[in-house]
């Protein structure tokens, strides 16, 4: 008997493996980032540059109806945090599609592993990236004049909401990418809805100040809802029910669609 076909070591039964396999996939995704640090430029460096540019250029503009100095700066930072989460989310869809289009997807599908692990693991590793992004942005925004009245709990809540919102869009991007099926097409197509979501929302301006045709869209836009939750948290509000509703609606539906698409037999 050669080493190639040595007797099998006892395997861990499949029924105990969903969380473990998801953690393994998440670990793999994070290890890929650690070993290829260039891939962190988009999710971590670019948002900081955007934040500094936006606040420096627009931070001192007056916000209609708010005479207090710095009001627009406070308004803008929350919008920029959500904007960056929204623009990072499509990279999840692309990563998922690259996995699905490579030999690695067949490898995973041929293994006796949890069928949910690839998506759940991707969500878990993305949560880490979204959290790191939000922490970094808050760390840069604070010296630029952004204030959170509840202190650390308020900051933690903002990070939490940003992660949930980012994940929701990431899962939706994953479903859409799998639906498109072609990585090159997805690379060109996925960012358009994210950009539209960000600009037809209250991320940079109150809904009432947007063009008339934009206002109903902006009111229904999850970016508006997420930015409003962040702004409320920054001034000491506790919009837990609103945030929880937003999270459930945003994650459950696209999450179910993406999981079905990933596990669909070919």
């Amino acid at each position, binding site marked *: 008997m050669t080493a190639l076909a040595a007797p099998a070591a006892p395997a861990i039964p499949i029924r105990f493996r969903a969380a473990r396999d998801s953690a393994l996939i998440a670990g793999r995704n994070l290890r890929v980032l650690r070993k290829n640090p260039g891939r962190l430029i988009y999710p971590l460096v670019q948002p900081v540059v955007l934040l500094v540019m936006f606040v420096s250029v627009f931070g001192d503009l007056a916000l209609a109806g708010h005479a207090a100095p710095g009001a627009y700066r406070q308004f803008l930072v929350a919008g920029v945090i959500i904007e960056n989460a929204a623009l990072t989310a499509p990279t999840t869809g692309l990563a998922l599609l690259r996995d699905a289009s490579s030999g690695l997807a067949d*490898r995973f599908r041929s293994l006796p*592993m949890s069928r949910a692990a690839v998506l759940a693991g991707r969500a878990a590793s993305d949560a880490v990236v979204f959290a790191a992004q939000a922490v970094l942005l808050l760390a840069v925004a604070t010296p630029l004049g952004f204030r959170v009245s509840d202190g650390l709990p308020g900051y933690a809540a903002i990070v939490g909401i940003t992660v949930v919102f980012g994940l929701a869009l990431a899962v939706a991007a994953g479903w859409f990418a799998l639906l498109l099926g072609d990585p090159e097409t997805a690379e060109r197509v996925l960012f358009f809805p994210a950009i539209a979501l960000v600009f037809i929302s209250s991320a940079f301006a109150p809904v009432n100040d947007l063009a008339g045709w934009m206002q109903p869209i902006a009111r229904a836009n999850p970016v508006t809802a997420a930015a409003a939750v962040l702004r409320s948290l920054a001034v000491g509000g506790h919009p837990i029910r609103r945030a929880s509703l937003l999270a459930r609606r945003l994650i459950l539906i696209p999450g179910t669609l993406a999981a079905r698409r990933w596990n669909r037999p070919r």
Partner: protein
Amino acid sequence: MSDSRPAIEAAAVRKAFGQVKALDGVDLMVNQGSLTALLGPNGAGKTTMVRIIATLSRADAGTVRVLGFDVARQPGEVRARIGLTGQYAGLEEALSGRDNLILIGRLAGLRRGDALSRAAELTASFGLSDVEGRLVKTYSGGMRRRLDLAASLMARPSLLVLDEPTTGLDPGSRQQLWTALMDLKAAGTTMLLTTQYLEEADKFADFLHLLDHGKVIATGTPAQLKASAGADATLDEAFLALTGHATVSR
């Protein structure tokens, strides 16, 4: 499980993609411990059949049992017993060879310690110990293919399914891969492979199934198939006589 049970039993397997019939009633049997090759021209249905056996695709009709388990109804049992080396390397290019093996071993259910020791055994067996810490994207084609095969062996499968494992490799790398496959065969691993190199099938396979237009048109040992084309016929000549196609290709 009894040793006499076939490793693969397929009966009346059909699969269509739109109007195209990829498999049109395929019957197939692979004995345990054998190396069986699936041959056929472009679009004959080889990869479709392999994907159904490996639980990656579902047949429209017919039954496939792998090591006694139905691929449609018991895919988890099948996956726990097979290794797959597909046409495209099933590896994460942005991780090292060693990290790939450990990840795949652990996803196959091995505990961390077992995965670590198994990865070390396999990198040594495949001559990859010196490069196991390098990112896979820096590997040559031959090294990548050997690592891919090693990954398929992490959980010590009873059945190894290989879809064109040597395609695109230089002669030296092909020879190294075949040495490893022969070692596996000697150790009792059952193998089903597709290949476009008839000389490899002739030299190494115990049994051949020739597919054309989604049907098995001939089965037998290499000697039997060659004999069907006349005395002193080569496998190429037998292939041409049976299919009317000049070459085997994907």
